[in-house]
């Protein structure tokens, strides 16, 4: 009697094992790739390498970070856009440049809104507006007055044509009637160096890039973007308080997946991403990178992207900025 019961239970178990359950169809079946479309070492790369081991633990499959640099991030993004639609290929990048891409590049090989599906925003890192100490200004109002009095003389360093910190000074200049020179550099570090040495005079750059120079007196901080003042530099007003437009400027990092991937998997990734970002250790690491955690899921991310593709696109078109 007991024996037949055992057999019955075993048969049931075998049957269950042979039949793929609903839960299994929704799970990850092989290694997951996180494509970072930049060279190793930047914020996106660091974030991906922070998240990968936690995600691996959560989904029970290997999670590999793959750097695919080039073309302002478009080569890596294109690879994810054209990957199998099975939710196993993720993209972690600065989504500000992604929002700019459709208006900058006429022959972009993918549509960020149609070929990629948002999983969730990860972090927002505000800009610090800083100037070279040689410049005779100590506040945003003085900078605006000085730049207006010396049209075409003040040089704003940016980390590359068509990047967010190239577009930000253009937006501000347009709104306040300032005419300044936009000087492109190869990356944020080179741009920062140029302002520290006085070659250029103004820079909009992340907290992690600029803050130490501000604290040290090698740069003069004037304001910070984002919704609130920063605990590390409480004296600096926000853009809004200083009556500067473009207060939403900064670096936005987000996680995406190939469009058309199973919604259950995207939901699973969203849930796990939120759990990972709720971890105080990760939050601290993100704070070290000069940002704050933004864990608000796919819907909010989608809306943010649509909004920014539109507004940034207008700035790009009005000013004739060209990526190609």
């Amino acid at each position: 009697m007991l024996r037949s019961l055992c057999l019955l239970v075993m048969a049931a178990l075998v049957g269950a094992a042979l039949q793929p359950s609903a839960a299994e169809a929704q799970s990850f079946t092989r290694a997951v790739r996180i494509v970072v479309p930049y060279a190793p070492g930047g914020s996106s790369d660091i974030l991906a390498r922070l998240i990968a081991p936690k995600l691996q633990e959560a989904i029970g499959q290997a999670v590999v970070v793959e750097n695919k640099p080039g073309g302002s991030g478009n080569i890596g993004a294109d690879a994810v856009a054209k990957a199998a639609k099975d939710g196993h290929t993720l993209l972690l990048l600065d989504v500000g440049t992604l929002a700019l891409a459709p208006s900058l590049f006429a022959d972009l090989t993918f549509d960020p809104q149609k070929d990629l599906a948002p999983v969730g925003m990860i972090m927002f890192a505000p800009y610090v507006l800083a100037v070279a100490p040689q410049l005779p200004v100590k506040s945003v109002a003085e900078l605006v007055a000085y730049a207006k009095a010396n049209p075409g003389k003040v040089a704003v360093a940016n980390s590359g044509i068509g990047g967010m910190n190239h577009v930000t000074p253009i937006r501000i200049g347009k709104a306040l009637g300032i005419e300044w020179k936009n000087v492109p550099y190869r990356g944020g570090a080179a741009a920062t160096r140029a302002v520290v040495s006085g070659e250029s005079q103004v820079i909009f750059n992340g907290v992690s890039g600029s803050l130490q120079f501000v604290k040290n007196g090698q740069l003069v901080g004037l304001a910070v973007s984002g919704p609130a003042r920063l605990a590390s530099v409480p004296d600096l007003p926000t853009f809004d308080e200083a009556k500067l437009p473009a207060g939403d400027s900064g670096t936005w990092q987000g996680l995406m997946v190939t469009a058309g991937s199973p919604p259950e998997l995207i939901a699973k990734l969203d849930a796990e991403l939120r759990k990972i970002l709720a971890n105080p250790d990760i939050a601290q690491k993100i704070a070290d990178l000069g940002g704050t955690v933004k864990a608000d899921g796919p819907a909010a991310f989608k809306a943010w992207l649509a909004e920014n593709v539109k507004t940034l696109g207008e700035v790009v078109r009005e000013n004739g900025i060209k990526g190609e």
Partner: protein
Amino acid sequence: MDLFSNLALGLATAVEPINLLYCLIGVVIGTAIGVLPGIGPIPTVALLLPFTFGLDATSAFIMLAGIFYGAQYGGSTTAILVNVPGETSSVVTCLDGHKMAQQGRAGPALAIAAISSFYAGTIATVVICLLSLPLSALALKFTAVEYFSLLVLGLLAAVVLAHGSVMKALAMVLLGLLLGLIGIDVSSGAARMTFGVAELGDGIDFVPVAMGLFGLGEIMANLERPPVRQVVSQKVRDLIPSWADLKASFPAMTRGTLIGCILGVLPGGGAALPPFTAYAVEKKLSKNKAMFGHGAIEGVAAPEAANNAGAQTSFIPLLTLGIPANALMALMIGALMMHGIQPGPQIMTEQPQLVWGVIASMWVGNLMLLVINLPLVGIWVSMLKIPYRLMFPAIALLCCIGTYGIANSVFNIWLMLGCALVGYFFIKVGAEPAPLLLGLVLGPQLEENFRRAMLLSDGDLLVFLQRPISAVLLVVAAMLILVLLSPTVFRKRKEALAE
């Protein structure tokens, strides 16, 4: 006396058993990846970053730094033995190092490379201790204007260092400059000569071009004349450099170290300038100019010293200003941030143990490298005895893996194979590829800095002469041109080449 207490603190940190262990791990990994062509320190450091989270920040940084200068050591090994420069820094080592190997003097070449690197590493450590602050102030004096003038000088040096026809060298530099134009223009954002190929957007990568032109091109040329290799493998018994070798190398090492120390500090100059400049200077100063390009031991000692010194002093802007001098230093900043340390000018006062520990560990690591590398010379040289039919596919395979690894891109493999054909052609027509590589690396920076200088000065060309540093550099460049054009030098060159 601050210096001594700082150094003492640094040494005490560096010789802690745990830090010694990580230093050793770092330099061994570094040597290994340096020896494998194409697999450079940047992807290795990126891969190892997550593993350092569990470590103390000082130990982690000591290990990562060890990988970096360890790779400088290892890179010269493949350059000398098989003419494959895995890094920009070892291109120049190929010129005379590989010639020495072909003459059966691979042992002395490898040993001198290791000794020069150690010598330069020792001096550079002292330089970092003494001169960090003044040197970083110098680095800040270099704006677009000064960079442009420095790069002009560097490119002229490329013509000087080539052996053979000046016309061919000029043509190669110009070809390199043209290739450097490919990609998205930093100043305007326009894509140039990319033919719609997205992979060309960031320009042509240096590594596939170098490996194709030098390594694979050479292999193809070798396949035509297999007996030459036999000669190489028979004459390798004398491994140790002679007293005369050491005597000839010592002044070259010293000059190379000085040049490397200064150029290493300048952000953007990258790994290419120090060894190229050191080689050019040595060739100008040497009594036996004719030997250069034909296995001159000074031609190995000077660039090896320069690249190791430069590798170490490139930490100065990072440690004193928080500004990375090159891509690898940018990665190091990422590493520091992941350990919760904000890089920047305050780091020396806030984290003295880390900064001085890393500096002292560089010297300790260089000592380890010397101890590891000298006995290995025999093993490396015996690898030349491997039959060429086995060696060739192995090198080709490693080159393919290495190029693919740079950006996980198959495109780079095709680029390398294409360059191999071109390299074969260059060998046939007797054109030296080194000036082309320098043009490729420095060309984009030359243009970028020129246009930035013009943008900032509202198009005033006189700015290059108004700034003192820039004016001096341009005067030196002008003198170089005069020397090149003067008939006596031309005659001497011809005589030298006739020998």
